[in-house]
């Protein structure tokens, strides 16, 4: 965890410096308080605490020098696949329409959650799509994207 904390600290410090630098493009004091003030105070706090986290992580790394770094435990392949499926859904939703795009999304996520029974996958995907359609389109009257050809 110490090594990851060092990375996080570095990212947050970079973010703080970047956001602070961008405040120079904001207008100076217009009323009693400038739009620069709040972001600068936050960036200052973020930078300071990131430095504290960095020192803590470096000290922890020294103490645990001979130990093994704790693994992330993220199932990268499944996680990556889930993000890909979700991202693809956001891309095709407006082109294909809600009724065509949603069952593959649900089916894909079920497969990633280790569902192997195809009948169950198909039934749950279609039933959930239909129920959500009824709820959002008919009960709450939220217009949902439609396939342009029907």
């Amino acid at each position, binding site marked *: 965890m110490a090594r990851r904390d060092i990375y996080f600290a570095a990212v947050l410090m970079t973010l703080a410096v970047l956001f602070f630098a961008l405040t120079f493009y904001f*207008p100076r004091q217009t009323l009693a308080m400038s739009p620069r003030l*709040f972001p600068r105070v936050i960036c200052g*706090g*973020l930078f300071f605490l990131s430095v504290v986290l960095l020192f803590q992580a470096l000290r922890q790394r020294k103490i645990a020098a001979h130990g093994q770094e704790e693994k992330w435990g993220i199932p990268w392949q499944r996680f990556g696949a889930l993000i890909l499926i*979700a991202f693809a859904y956001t891309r095709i939703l407006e082109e294909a329409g809600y009724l065509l795009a949603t069952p593959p999304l649900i089916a894909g996520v079920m497969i990633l*959650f280790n*569902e192997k029974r195809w009948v169950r996958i198909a039934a749950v995907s279609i039933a*959930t799509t239909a129920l959500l359609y009824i709820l959002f389109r008919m009960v*709450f009257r939220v217009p949902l994207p439609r396939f342009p050809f029907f």
Partner: protein
Amino acid sequence: MDAFVQGFAQILSLEMFPFLFLGVAGGILVGALPGLTASVGIILLLPLTYKLDPSTGMVMLCGMFCGAIYGGSVSAILISTPGTPSAAATVLDGYPLAQKGEAGKALGIATIASTVGGIISTFCLIFLAPQLARIALKFGPEEYFALMVFGLTIIGSVSGKSLIKGMLAGLFGLLIATIGLDPVTGYARYSFDIPDLMSGFPLLPVLIGLFAFSEIFIQLETVAKEGIQKITRHIGNVWPSWGEIKSISPIILLSSLLGTVIGVIPGTGGAIASFLAYNEAKRWSKDPESFGKGNIAGVAAPEAANNGTTGGAMVPLMTLGIPGDVVTAVMLGALLLIGIRPGPLMFKEHPQVVNAIFAGMMSANFLMLALGMVSVRLFPHVLRAPISILFPVIFALCFLGSFSLNNSVYDMAVALGFGVLGYIMRKNGFPAVPIVLGVILGPIAEDELGHAMILSHGNWLILFQSPIALFFYGLAVFSVFFSWKRMKGLRGG
């Protein structure tokens, strides 16, 4: 009193009661399933709340809140896994009772204790909140700014194991909140002329991403398990005997009051209340050695206390606009989403919503008792729900929910992005709640600060001239110090 009675009449109407029922039943279900917390339950209902009348929406959310906190006891008792953090102490005696074949009695006692705790805390809410709101009406922008500073320091209390990481998460939330229009001058900050970024990140997708999506990503790690757990426990008799009720009544009453007091203190919550109540019940018991082996008081005390926090936590939320615990932090987001800013003005400008919340909280507890006792034999079946169906359905619901706010694919992308961010941060010990607190309270704090500066013509001393403001700054310092000591104690202990 008339207004309260009117609130009740509204609750029982055909327009509102089905949503109260949905909230309570859904809450019990959500709370019972490990991996879904009261916060996630409220977020799942947010897209629906947005489409309803504000009073109806809030009644539904109150039902979810009360139901979910109680529902956590179901899995705590049946499978030794608390459904919500508030039910962690219930495992200690609830599960041993189930192992002895008395799961039904344990669930019955949990239901009764939760109901009493919820009712007592709701009475406190109804009597205390209007009085506090009257005092808070006298606050000016400098007092509100100090209050927001205090509200932000409760980040320390919800920071989990690392105060530094919690504060970094809070500051990150504050930084995200600066993207978009400055609340004082209207200047578009960090927008890079991108129209979507000019209004900042919409709150609902941020909440959905940080809580619901990140939780689903975490559940992906346990995907190898088939369902949650096979439950073969026999439920048996649900109602405790008259002698047992008599013996635990004082504990239930005292734990309910303890839970209410703890709930009123911002940054605490059901988990702290339930453990404190359990420890006190054990300390004052004539037979402390029996705790941990199936003592019914060991179930009654934490359950009365954790539901006792529900009404208590609504007090600072409704009167001051600062959340009492994690769940009310999400409720704060819900109120802002439906266009109501919680605080003393809510009592003046939206009295019908206030009355609906009071009547809703009270009705939810009674409904929870009825539903809990009637459906207790269904609980083992609920816990068999396979995660390969549950979480994909929730994923789709959340995606559609984030789309439905503005009919915008951008909002879906925001939810997904914050889901990934929330997951990676949580895997590395950065809690999600401080980010939400920063996103919600940051703009309010900046707005109040701006108003104070305008009124004082740029004189910063105005922030330190009010005794009430100084009181809140003092509370803020104490809150940070207390959090630091607690973290130090946890690490050393």
